[in-house]
């Protein structure tokens, strides 16, 4: 492997780190240059899956990532329509990811951005990721398997493409004609965003980088534990380094015990991100990676994305999401239930290999 190829993920990480700072500089909420949990939540809100008026926006970064990853996967022949590996369970795991993520208030990428912006409360979440990864691996090495994905006809790959083209059209008509639908926040984090074209453009770049580097924030710790393979963790460090330098340069580094759009409950941050990490390992990739795999025509990943959108809707409609004010009672209950469900799935699908001989 050439030196460039070995370090491509570090380079990609650095760029994503810088990109995050730039998007915040131009209007995104603090330490939220890119955040897959927050952005799925905002998209769910824009579509009306929840009615929290503070977090509704069709984040163009995600739509850009769709375009970037999709064309990158097509160009580099990573486009391989397949699916059917327990989609219903993947949908549920998508919901669990959002429950955990919205207790912490971010995905692993935002956890890094938060730290790079000086928010010390991110540490609880960052420690939670390896904890969750460890739980997932415990079962993966004991036979956990959701079953094989099988080849699908090519037209099936058009379904997620169609869904995201509709989102793009909705974004355009909203910007062009200020239509009442989709819903866009007029105050709160949902109203804070960089110019749509900048978000979309940087999203395309990020989409290509993510697709080419196979960056996965759940995979980083998983590979360290399993094989002592540091490739993916380099991406993690790249994002941190890039964001730190860019934040410092743009005057966005503001040390605080609890930063903006965050809360300081260490246990909740740790357990929230732990649940996200656990569910992500059971799915085979972090919230970002699920999006990228969707554009490699993995229909199961698309189902996980739909689960995350539904999860965002549920979490906000039922008042389970945390906020800078802290974690609600419902939030704690959802966290407990989330762990129970994740353990049940992990345990149940580890037994399969022990009982059903033959097909692994």
């Amino acid at each position, binding site marked *: *492997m050439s030196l460039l190829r070995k370090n491509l993920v570090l380079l990609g990480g650095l760029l994503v780190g810088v990109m995050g700072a730039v998007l915040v500089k131009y209007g995104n909420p603090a330490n939220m240059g890119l955040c897959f949990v927050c952005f799925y939540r905002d998209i769910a809100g824009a579509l009306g899956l929840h009615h929290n008026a503070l977090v509704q926006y069709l984040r163009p970064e995600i739509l850009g990532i769709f375009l970037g990853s999709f064309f990158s996967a097509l160009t580099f022949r990573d486009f391989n329509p*397949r699916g059917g*590996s327990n989609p219903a369970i993947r949908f549920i795991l998508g919901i669990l990811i959002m429950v955990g993520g919205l207790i912490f208030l971010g995905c692993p990428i935002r956890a890094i951005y938060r730290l790079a912006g000086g928010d010390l409360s991110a540490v609880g979440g960052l420690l939670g990721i390896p904890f969750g990864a460890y739980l997932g691996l415990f079962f*993966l090495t004991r036979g956990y398997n959701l079953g094989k*994905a099988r080849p699908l006809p090519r037209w099936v790959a058009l379904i997620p493409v169609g869904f995201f083209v509709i989102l793009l059209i909705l974004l355009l008509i909203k910007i062009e004609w200020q239509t009442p639908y989709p819903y866009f926040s007029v105050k709160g984090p949902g109203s804070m965003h960089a110019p749509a074209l900048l978000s979309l453009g940087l999203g395309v770049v990020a989409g290509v980088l993510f697709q080419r580097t196979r960056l996965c924030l759940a995979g980083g710790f998983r590979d360290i534990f399993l094989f002592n393979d540091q490739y993916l963790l380099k991406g993690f460090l790249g994002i941190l380094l890039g964001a730190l330098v860019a934040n410092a340069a743009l005057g966005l580094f503001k040390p605080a015990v609890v930063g903006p759009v965050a809360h300081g409950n260490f246990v909740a941050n740790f357990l929230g991100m732990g649940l996200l990490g656990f569910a992500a390992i059971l799915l*085979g990739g972090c919230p970002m990676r699920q999006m990228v795999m969707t554009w490699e025509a993995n229909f199961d990943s698309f189902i996980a994305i739909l689960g995350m959108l539904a999860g965002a809707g549920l979490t906000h409609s039922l008042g389970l999401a945390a906020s800078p004010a802290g974690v609600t009672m419902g939030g704690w209950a959802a966290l407990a239930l989330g762990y129970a469900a994740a353990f049940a799935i992990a345990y149940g699908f580890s037994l399969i290999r022990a009982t059903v001989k033959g097909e692994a």
Partner: protein
Amino acid sequence: MSAPVIDCRGLSCPLPVIRVKEELDKGQPFSVIVDASVAVENISRFLGYRGVSFIVTPRGADRLIEVGS
């Protein structure tokens, strides 16, 4: 007896690498068939770290990785 072929097509990350690791620990030559570039890359990286020689050849839309011991 020919070397066993492990079918890892359609498995989620990182199961193909886990299967390869399990098989490698048995100490016999084997082959593994995968359908995703990411699986080829992960397995290649893993075998590279272990200092194990291997050959990757296309097989229709899939890839066959032959692992020596």
